């Protein structure tokens, strides 16, 4: 039986780049525990000799020539940017972040 504590939910939220307030944290902890408790049902199946399925209809990975296809222009690609400068996506500084984050 999976025991999920708020620290687990917090750790996973950090991995997923989500921030949970206290109420969300307690609700998500309870929900994760409930759902993971349910999926423990799978442990009753012996799968030691079973190969995993990633795709139901296996296809060989197709390849193609590496040629420019001109999907859309840079201006179009940038058109949805919440903030842009000189045809680049603008974001807050990252350096301090890596050290502390």
């Amino acid at each position, binding site marked *: 039986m999976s025991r999920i504590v708020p620290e687990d939910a917090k750790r*996973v939220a950090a991995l997923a780049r989500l921030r949970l307030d206290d109420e969300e944290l307690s609700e998500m902890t309870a929900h*994760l525990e409930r759902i993971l408790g349910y999926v423990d049902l799978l442990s009753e199946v012996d799968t030691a000799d079973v190969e995993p399925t990633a795709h139901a209809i296996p296809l060989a990975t197709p390849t193609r020539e590496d040629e420019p296809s001109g999907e859309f222009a840079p201006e179009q690609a940038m058109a949805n940017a919440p903030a842009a400068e000189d045809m680049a996506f603008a974001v807050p500084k990252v350096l301090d*972040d890596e050290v502390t984050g």
Partner: protein
Amino acid sequence: MSEPFGSVSELRSALDSGETSSRELIQRALERAAGVGERLSAFVGLQNEQALSAADAADARRAAGEVRSPLDGLPLAIKDNIVQQGEPAGCASRILEGYVSPFDSTAVAKLRGAGAVVIGRANMDEFAMGSSTENSAHGPSRNPWDPERSPGGSSGGSTAAVAADIVPLALGSDTGGSIRQPAAFCGVVGMKPTYGRVSRWGLVAFASSLDQIGPLGHSAADCAVLLDAISGHDPADSTSLPEPALTTASALTGDVSGLVIGLPREYFETEGADPAVLELVRAAAARLEAEGAKLVEVDLPHSRYAVAAYYLIATAEASSNLARFDGVRYGRRAEGAASLTDLYERSRSEGFGSEVKRRILLGTYVLSAGYYDAYYRKAQKIRTLLRRDFEAAFAGCDVLLTPTTPETAFRLGEKTEDPLTMYLSDIYTVSANLAGLPGVSLPCGLAEGLPVGLQVLGPPMEDATVLRVADAYQRLTDHHLARPEKLA
């Protein structure tokens, strides 16, 4: 024109004879979308001007004898997660506020080529995560049969729009039942094609190994026309089947004699399933038997593990797919972020609704170090066993006949407290996605005034067969002609 839309072939005749025009059809659809559609919250956006000018172009083609396809000039709705160039695509999420797609999905491009007219974007559960359309940033859609009830989900807006006769056809997407379950709840036909039949290019990804776009309509025959139009190999989707477009519409012979129909024992013994639903499904099987089909009981011994395996795999894939929504390149960015991590966290926390956050957390957990084998890999192995169950069953029958859902449409709010209760309502639909099978839901009667869905599942690639069985049933019965009275 106040008469309801007819079938695709009736509409085509009416257009050919000049009894109506595409402009008239599109105007009617737009009026109904703004009227009854508004009351049902079926749409998140209408495309009035574009649709009317596309209608005029269709009328001009018809006048010039240049009709492109059986869908030329017909109105349809598309789910808000299938992108169109120059139009918003929001997935009913705050995080995609302001997003305008720079490209067409392959399905929409094919429909444009066929002359079909998109009138608007349909409401849905945020990022297609849900079974009730209650997880929409725009508020829940309502069931035309009873507005206090859910139309199902996640393609609830598309389905309600068809059921309320706003459009004769719509596109949904089905990751674990998101076309078939709302079709069952709203008394229409909805089909999930074999995985890879319809290109996923331009379908915003939820769980890539499970997602398929598919048709919704009032009949299997109408859905066949729409499926044929959007199917076929697409180099832009590496999981697209290497087959040409389908021609299922010409395979609807109405003949079921000699067809062997399997009834999965486990599906009829599910705890909590409404006996009235099971009874109508058995009656439908008996009706086909009377036409010469043979009924056999089959076993799908791993069925009880399907929902658990599904929610592990789907959330794992979702947590990975939804990492792209970070407020940097498109969509909604949180204000006042102090650093890049702060920007990611704030944008995602403000932009995603709670069910999406829950699934991202669950998916991240099951993929995280130390848990991968116990959860994700275990679920993938169960997926193998489920596939083998179907292979063994289909060795002895042509199709399976099952309920689509264990019960009829539930009330809004009834299942929102406990996510697991909502997940368990997908018990009959998730396996088809895990195994890649084609499946269609069609109405087979009413239980206490609410539609009941009959599901036909076939082996991979047998899209035409499941539609043929559904169509044969509809030639014998008139359940698909029933319309919601409360709506009038």
